[in-house]
């Protein structure tokens, strides 16, 4: 499992500071940081209630923290269905309900050479790790980010070609032509890595695990899943692992979302 951070979740009602489109499918939701919101670790998430005039959207949605400053919590949200569309319609000044920060984070490894591999909306926690907490981009932390095409890249607003960041597109419309795991293999060929981080589509993270196996180095992956409580209570968001203890299942919300990826049953994970 990832870095242990004791649960100190609280329910907050936060004002929307801004909500802007980043790319074709992604938008950046900035919430006013509540004064007593503890410093989150990279990989932790918040559980956000979808604004709805009735009970149409019943379950909360978990989002990894993309950035957290003194004043704001930033979430990157991809439009996948009516719930995320309702969040896209949130306007400056609206109030959203959420609780967090929740879950296990990526481990802080000051002496290690880390290669972080992100795909799609999975960039969020890896960005947070490199840019904010513990924040060592370019100094032993290389961030690789892939998307299908340039239009899907959402890093451009902050960090294109910043030291320590490399981009890949499947169609070659920006950066390395090919998938981000191929880019990772090439990058590591030039300068070795001690640890891999990943967050993105299951197919991508599974390929990262193969790379980690080949290189015989640890790999920490952040998973996502539909959740009920997000506190480890309801056992809805479980994934199959090689662990035992009465059940092979572990919760994404509480045992994860960041897992030591070697314990996961990659062949049985859902492929969204």
């Amino acid at each position: 499992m990832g870095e242990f951070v004791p649960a100190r979740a609280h329910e907050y009602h936060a004002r929307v500071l801004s909500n802007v489109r980043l790319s074709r499918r992604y938008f950046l939701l900035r919430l006013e940081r509540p004064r007593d919101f503890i410093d989150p670790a990279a990989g932790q998430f918040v559980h956000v209630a979808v604004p709805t005039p009735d009970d149409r959207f019943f379950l909360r949605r978990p989002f990894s923290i993309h950035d957290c400053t003194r004043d704001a919590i930033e979430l990157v949200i991809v439009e996948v269905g009516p719930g995320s569309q309702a969040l896209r319609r949130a306007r400056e000044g609206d109030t959203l309900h959420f609780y967090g920060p929740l879950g296990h984070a990526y481990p802080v490894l000051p002496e290690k050479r880390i290669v972080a591999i992100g795909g799609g909306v999975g960039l969020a926690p890896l960005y947070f790790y490199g840019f904010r907490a513990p924040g060592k981009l370019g100094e032993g932390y290389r961030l690789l980010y892939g998307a299908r095409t340039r239009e899907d890249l959402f890093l451009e607003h902050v960090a294109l070609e910043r030291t320590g960041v490399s981009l890949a597109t499947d169609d070659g419309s920006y950066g390395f032509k090919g998938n981000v795991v191929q880019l990772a293999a090439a990058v590591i060929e030039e300068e070795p890595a001690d640890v891999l981080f990943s967050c993105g589509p299951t197919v991508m993270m599974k390929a990262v695990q193969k790379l980690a196996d080949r290189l015989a180095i640890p790999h920490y992956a952040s998973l996502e899943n539909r959740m009920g409580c997000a506190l480890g209570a309801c056992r809805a968001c479980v994934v199959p692992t090689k662990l035992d203890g009465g059940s092979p299942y572990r919760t994404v919300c509480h045992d994860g979302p960041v897992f030591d990826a070697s314990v996961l049953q990659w062949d049985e994970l859902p492929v969204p």
Partner: protein
Amino acid sequence: MGDISIQIGPVRFKNPVFIASGICGYAEEYSPLVNLSRLGGVVTKTITMLPRAGNLPPRIHEMPHGMLNSIGLENVGLDRYVNEKLPQLNQRPDVGVMVSVAAETEDEFIKLAERFAPMDGYAGLELNLSCPNVKGEALDQGRNPQLVEKISRIVKERIPKKSLWIKVTPNITDVGTVARAAEQGGADAIAAVNTLVGIDFDLETGKPVFARGSAGYSGPAILPIALQKVWECAKAVSIPIVGIGGIATIDDARKFFLAGATAIQVGTSLYNDPGLPERIVDALAENPEWMRARARASASPAA
């Protein structure tokens, strides 16, 4: 704030607001968000004799005004519960805990009851005779009045000083008959209701969303059905009824008292609104007479 404590069998609870089984794990998980000591109590996840791995994911699926779940009674099993989880509760005497249990046979119910009988740290047992998410027995037990009466009796005999609640299924034509059987078996309360059986399909694959197909439907959508079942139970028995199903607001909770409930449980809505149970406690405590006057009065057998 007035006194809204209630008596269910031999146990006094500080108020009539509980969190339903399966929602808040073994209780402590929700303590960062809910002040559990302010509630009448919490009902744990269902415990079984042996650990259960639960169902293949996915296990949860949002529907309009509610959700389907197919957890499958994943739990640590009786030994670990009694050795690890229950002792934690002993450190929190301020939290009322009803332990939900399920078993496949009468013999297993006897063993469970005998194991719990000498224990401290809990207020009673809620028998889950109505989970739709496991193979065979559990749901069928809850549909068989003779079995419900027998199970109620063999458990109650072994825990005379604890509160015994029987959780009934709404997936049955005549819930009153089952409630009456539980009362005759010596149950202290009827907990009504468990989830409704439901199913949803994935249009892309053409298959059910869940590996097991059918699942349990809960959330605000089931409120009128749950109220109806509580109403029917209230006409059938004189023991207290704990109303469960679709409570998403304070007014929803009030309606259960009008239907004849003595207490209520908040279930699925806790995921959306963890502050709800405490707000219901506050609202009831502002006017204790309302609760006392309404409970059962409008739903007596004569009504």
